């Protein structure tokens, strides 16, 4: 069984085999995303109780908190893919890392944006230098650094290696940065935007938050699979299987380049 599993992993780690697999599962993940999102949003807006202190505006945390969770999770997953890509030279892992970055940055931005909108009615200001918001901002900088480095290098292999190394350096530093920011925040006794919810979070609130998180998670998978399919085509465009896939379209190019075999 274990052997069979490992063969399957090996098989699908080749971009050529992963491409059709990804294409097959994408519709299913779309379905899951939409279903979870509908349920989650319905619960957030109509079922979850109104907060006794913050009124209706608190409901934005059902987007804010899952987005913040996802932003951190995605960076971690990205770094794991980068390690796999660098250590075992799995090209698909490199591609996954680069496909994850824009979505991670998007969730980080979403977390900051919803945080600001939540802060305005609650604390009367869009931005406070709270430990969590500040860390989230720094995380956004790390994502932007990763994406910029990748797009600044023309050779895709070099770009993947360099940005992968950066992701690993970043993931090692992240806990140190979080800890430092936490410390800095308590030192300056700055405002805290931690959700001032009733000590015991109602089960329905927690459930809603988890469902929203799963919805975001499925959405991430869909988008990343779509993006990685595009990256595969881009990077493998000179290989025979991509040419066969596009048959007539690619045949002109094939003659021009000549099959270098």
């Amino acid at each position, binding site marked *: 069984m274990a052997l069979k599993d490992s063969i399957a992993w090996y098989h699908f780690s080749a971009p050529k085999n992963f491409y059709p697999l990804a294409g097959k599962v994408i519709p299913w993940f779309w379905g899951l995303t939409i279903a979870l999102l509908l349920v989650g949003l319905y619960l957030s807006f109509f079922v979850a109780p109104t907060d006794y202190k913050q009124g209706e505006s608190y409901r934005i945390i059902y987007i804010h908190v899952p987005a913040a969770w996802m932003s951190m999770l995605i960076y971690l997953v990205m770094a794991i893919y980068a390690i796999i890509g660098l250590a075992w030279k799995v090209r698909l892992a490199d591609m996954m890392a680069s496909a994850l970055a824009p979505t991670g940055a998007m969730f980080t931005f979403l977390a900051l944006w919803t945080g600001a909108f939540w802060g305005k009615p609650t604390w009367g200001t869009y931005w406070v230098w709270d430990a969590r918001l500040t860390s989230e901002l720094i995380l956004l900088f790390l994502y932007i650094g990763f994406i910029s480095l990748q797009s600044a290098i023309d050779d895709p292999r070099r770009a993947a290696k360099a940005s992968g190394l950066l992701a690993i350096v970043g993931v090692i530093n992240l806990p140190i940065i979080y800890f430092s920011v936490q410390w800095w925040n308590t030192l300056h006794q700055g405002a805290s935007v931690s959700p001032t919810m009733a000590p015991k979070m109602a089960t329905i609130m927690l459930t809603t938050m988890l469902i929203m998180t799963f919805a975001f998670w499925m959405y991430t998978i869909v988008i990343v699979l779509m993006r990685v399919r595009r990256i595969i085509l881009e*990077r493998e465009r000179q290989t025979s299987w991509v040419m066969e896939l596009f048959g007539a379209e690619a045949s002109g190019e094939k003659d021009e380049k000549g099959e*270098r*075999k």
Partner: protein
Amino acid sequence: MLEIRDLECVRGDHRLFTGLKFSLQGGELLYLRGSNGSGKTSLLRTVCGLLEPAEGEVLWKGRNVRSQRDEFNAELTYLGHLNGVKGELTAFENLRLGGALSGLAVSEDDIYQALERIGLGGREDLPAQVLSQGQKRRVALARLLLSQASLWVLDEPFTALDVGAVDLLAKLIEAHLQKGGMAMFTTHQAVDIRAGAVREMNLDARNS
């Protein structure tokens, strides 16, 4: 000694060569030919370990060079397109620090002699940036005179050299081969090397 197995090299999304095999023994010279862009430089850089092969491996004394970098580097001298000469340092300083970096026991006399032989006598103490292109190349070549490496990998070593220097370099390579050394080089000039076993490989022929 040096063995290349099923080497494949990819630059960008272009496959330069694949399934490349050869080996080199003491006293042998590999003369690498091919048109521009056929992958000569990439092959030399892959042999040195600067480029990672897409497939295949480079073995030195039966072991992959990537698993014994320090040992392999100690026996390797590489001369690339770039001279690796610091413009702000004099020719003498360049060689002295270069020697110390590679862990060679070279005396000041050795360095002066090498510079004299390569035709830079009297210019030892000028900053390298005031030297001409050909003279800078000679500073880089003077490293070969001091080197104790058994494998010389030379990428277009004859460019920017005058006739005298081309002759001198050819003699150096011959002497190196006679001592049982190995060399690989590329060149667009016709150069006559009359020692050792000269082998040729044409990258164009392989790809067509």
